[in-house]
């Protein structure tokens, strides 16, 4: 399958992030097309395109917009979730750096569709460069009359606020993000009510991922049929695949859904020289890992799920044979322990326990009981935590056990650092040798 650059088509131009750069290639043309339609027709268009949320859960975007009750007399809000913090996920930040106007345009169209007059872009606090780019794009858009009062004479008003988070993975969970945006401590809210009914400031709110929203202008311009001509029936469209890890050329490749990992690996220049693939994770650390045998699985929601993992954010992490699975899983769990918000018991205490057990395995002092226990504790967390963070924390170890039980069992007597030189897995490998 070939690359299909849509969002990333002009990232190589020096001024791709400016209004001029964006407009040179038809930027903001979709806006007028959208305004020519009724809002409900825009929602229908997005429904027809089959666009699914690119934040990880893959919920159909048009359906989400359709949940917003209309004519309820309450203000509506659009919130863009740009709190990209998943280990291994790096697609929204580059998008916001290189092409922030596609996001801004998408925000205007989406707000028009759900009849919101105020939109928020909640950007992860640790990426000030992205925040600056988006903020400057919003400023430019205001100056050009693309935001503010009576946009393009359509009679539609929209204010956009760019908000910087304060550094919490949990704030990528949509309700925790809303709490954080309202000025509270970011912790997930009880659902129902769902954000579409009572979200930001208890008003109907749509929370969408950056890539999702940025994809909207191209759909409006080219039509739903164009979009569905890519990918599969259940997973239509094109997507940004961010390949990272032990590859020659890590990077972002925009390709149709259904592209295989083998193709992505080729584009990324293959594995590091002299190394071979050990395992890969299709969409951030929260999904089970896959191995070489899955390289030809098409990158669609349904096929990846059939292979026993999840598409997630669509940002594969690739690991070669220098990597210790035990160490990798321990690092992921340390991340979840550190980021667990503390609200619910299974996640708060479970991640604490898992890290304790995993560190024993990593340092070679674990026992068979510990391995059993990690599996049990993971199962005790899964499905019982308040939000998906707990489920995510329960995923890596059982996933790893499926393919690397033997290696993990070595943790009962040998430290991971003895089996796999930590330096060998890094770019420093061989530097001091």
């Amino acid at each position: 399958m070939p690359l299909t650059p849509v969002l990333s088509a002009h990232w190589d131009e020096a001024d791709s992030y400016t209004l001029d750069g964006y407009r040179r290639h038809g930027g903001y043309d979709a806006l007028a097309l959208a305004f020519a339609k009724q809002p409900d027709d825009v929602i229908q268009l997005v429904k027809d395109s089959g666009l699914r949320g690119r934040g990880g859960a893959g919920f159909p975007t048009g359906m989400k917009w359709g949940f917003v009750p209309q004519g309820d007399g309450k203000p509506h809000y659009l919130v863009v979730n740009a709190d990209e913090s998943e280990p291994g996920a790096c697609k929204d930040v580059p998008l916001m750096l290189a092409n922030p106007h596609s996001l801004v345009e998408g925000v205007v169209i989406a707000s028009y569709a759900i009849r919101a007059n105020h939109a928020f872009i909640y950007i992860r606090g640790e990426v000030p460069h992205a925040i600056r780019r988006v903020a400057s794009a919003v400023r430019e858009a205001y100056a050009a009359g693309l935001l503010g009062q009576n946009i393009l004479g359509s009679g539609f008003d929209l204010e956009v606020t760019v908000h910087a988070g304060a550094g919490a993975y949990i704030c990528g969970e949509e309700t925790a993000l809303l709490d954080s945006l309202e000025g509270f401590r970011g912790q997930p809210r009880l659902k129902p009510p769902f954000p579409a009914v009572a979200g930001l400031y208890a008003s109907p709110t749509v929370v969408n991922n950056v890539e999702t929203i940025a994809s909207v202008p191209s759909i409006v311009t080219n039509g739903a049929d164009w979009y569905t001509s890519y990918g599969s029936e259940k997973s239509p469209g094109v997507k940004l695949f961010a390949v990272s890890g032990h590859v020659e050329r890590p990077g972002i490749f925009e390709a149709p859904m259904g592209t295989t990992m083998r193709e992505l690996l080729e584009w990324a220049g293959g594995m590091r020289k002299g190394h071979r693939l050990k395992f890969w994770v299709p969409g951030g650390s929260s999904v089970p890992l896959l191995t070489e045998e899955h390289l030809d699985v098409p990158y669609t929601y349904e096929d990846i799920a059939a292979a026993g993992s999840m598409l997630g954010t669509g940002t594969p992490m690739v690991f070669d044979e220098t990597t210790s699975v035990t160490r990798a899983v321990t690092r992921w769990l340390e991340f979840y322990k550190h980021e667990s918000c503390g609200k619910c018991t299974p996640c708060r205490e479970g991640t604490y326990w898992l890290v304790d057990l995993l560190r024993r395995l990593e340092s070679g002092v674990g026992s068979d009981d510990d391995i059993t226990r990690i599996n049990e504790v993971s199962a005790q967390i899964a499905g019982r935590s308040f939000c998906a963070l707990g489920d995510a924390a329960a995923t890596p170890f059982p996933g790893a056990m499926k393919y690397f039980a033997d290696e993990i069992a070595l943790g009962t007597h040998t430290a991971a650092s003895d089996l796999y030189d930590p330096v060998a897995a890094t770019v420093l490998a061989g530097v001091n040798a």
Partner: protein
Amino acid sequence: MTVTTASTSGDTLEPRPDLVTLTIDGVETSVPKGTLIIRAAEQLGVAVPRFCDHPLLDPVAACRMCLIEVEGMPKPQPACAVTCSDGMVVKTQMTSAVAGEAQRSVMEFLLINHPLDCPICDKGGECPLQNQAMTSGQGDTRFDGPKRTFPKPINLSAQVLLDRERCVSCARCTRFAEQIAGDPFIELLERGSQQQVGIADDVPFNSYYSGNTIQICPVGALTSAMYRFRSRPFDLASTPTACEHCASGCSLRTDSRRNAVMRRLAAVDPEVNEEWNCDKGRFAFRYLESDRRLTSPLVREGGELRPASWDEALVAAANGLKTADGKTGTVTGGRLMVEDAYAFSVFTRRVLGTNDIDFRPKGSSPEEEQFLAARVAGRGLGPTYADLEGAPAVLLVAFEPEDESPIVLLRLRKAAKAGTRVLAVAPAASRGLAKLDGTWIPSVPGSEATALQNLAPDVVDLFGQAGAVVLVGERAAASPGLLTAVGELCDRTGAALGWVPRRAGDRGALDAGLLPTLLPGGRPVADAAARVDTAAIWGAAEVPETAGRDLPTMLKAVEDREISALLMAGVQLDDLPDGAEAALRAAEFVVVLDTHDHAVVQFADVVFPVAAAPEKAGSFVNWEGRVRPSSQPLRTSLMTDARVLSVLGAEMGVAGLESDPVALMAQLEEFSGWEGARVSPPSVAGAPPDPGPGLLLATWRPLLEATHLQSGEPYLAATARAQEVWLSTGEARELGASEGDMITVTGASGSVTAPLVLAEVAAGAVVVTGNAHRALGASGVRVQVAVEGQG
């Protein structure tokens, strides 16, 4: 709720539209829409284990202990957060292995970081975590790693201590503080296993309701400095009591050990205090152990009080009172239970033969007497807490609920959250009013009557709605014409009228007829039929028919030698009008019945020690007019006021005065339902304050202050609010003062210096919080305000 089983096939139950029918553990049940599964299960007798769930707090589903299985849902659901829906099939841990396993594993998680210090934990023995670890946990833990630890307890306030390692992050305390009390001074901080309850660096948890967080903490994370390590649950004998501190009328549970009160908890009383009480009611009971307690009668000999035998004291008192020959006055205070108050009513009229009796502290007026006699006394129950909750609008007049009746504030807050509009005619928009999201109707002290008469038509309309309530505080007496205006407003609009006194005994005293023109049950002294009625119930020949004197008149009469003896019970010098000391000194003979040795006792000729509230059975009547029975937690050799009056009466020749609380209450009951004439309502014109230099002082007594009922409890005292001076921005600017500057307020008799708080204050008024009346006088006096060191 109805439980329908196959066996009730004979009944034809009408399906009710507001009910949903579901099956829990195979039992079909119908519950009102919106009922949470955990509540529905409770009604079936199935206790789903829980920590974060509390019936009066919004659900959070944080602890995950109550996970149960709902058919058709892929994951176990928190029973505390999912509402019942029609046709739902719920399986709790009783019938579902999934639910049981989920609960067991959550319990295991909760315990991995919970310390094993139950032996030294105050909660040990009554701990929901201990209990549920037994019912829903497993015998052994599989966790063998290091537990997370924190340094031992830290103070959230002087009273509330936090053991962070014991906390299970259920957030009950923080949710209580935010949702119920409106004092969000505590919040969860940090994240993950480091999550902990904390306070802001500079704001301690000085909430009047902080003690409730200790009570609802499901583990021993929150403990009180006062009760720490004092006893164990199995040491304690629990007695249901009523709170003696204010007219809210909370039901309490008094826990005692070896005849000493160890602690007090809020009892569950949905009609009154729900499950809450205030810190004063919870912690202020150490006065019982004060070394100022009176334990034996005292008689004055050679100018000095000396201990005497009961016989000697009774004879001395009887002789003294007989010598006065009816020229006696009775003054009672707010600590009296209604039975004792009634005994004073009987004693004064039958034995002393006079109507010179008054229960009201200083600041009272003839207008108030008329108002109380006409509109409150003997009217029975109403308006109630439930009425407040259901009211479309509530007007607060001369009443600061947070300080003067804290449980009224909690109920008003609950009401306000559900849409009740609260308005206050007050000199300032207080923080208490802000908690109620209330509307402030500015009025300087003395001009409240005018403010009421000039209410905007839309406000008046609010109170024309069915169920509207007007609550007037006891401070209204000090503002001429105000009670008249309140009564007229209620007459005009049909709003229900509630009088909220500050002290626990006031409403009971009123119903018992401790007013110069009033007999028990709202009967006017002036009404012949009422007197005959009363005499008949008392088995007396007659009841004195001349109206008596109220407190100020009595004190003046003492100085004029028209009254020679005073009988005083539970009266503090602070309660009496200024200059009362001269009258007490002038009185020829003073008999005092009291629990503690304080200033008034020093004027006495005979002193009888009496039992304090926890040492006797009896009841208070709260502001609603609801009888709040109180059992006797402590044994004592001391007699009740009624018993002392009974033996004193016998000594004076009137034998057979009832002293048994049950019999007294039964007799008082006979006075209810009076349908005869009432004292006519007052008609007093408002007297707006004279123009003059300076500002009009507005002040009220705070909940926590240095009174003898709060003595001996330093931790409680340390949570009292600091004194403040509130000025409007305009006044402050004129003064050249800014927030936080020390301001000196000078009145006729003294001055107060406190930091300035910029607030919404009525033009021409200054608010001095805390107990300012001692130094400055009552609300409505003119005071001079200056920045400290200037002026």
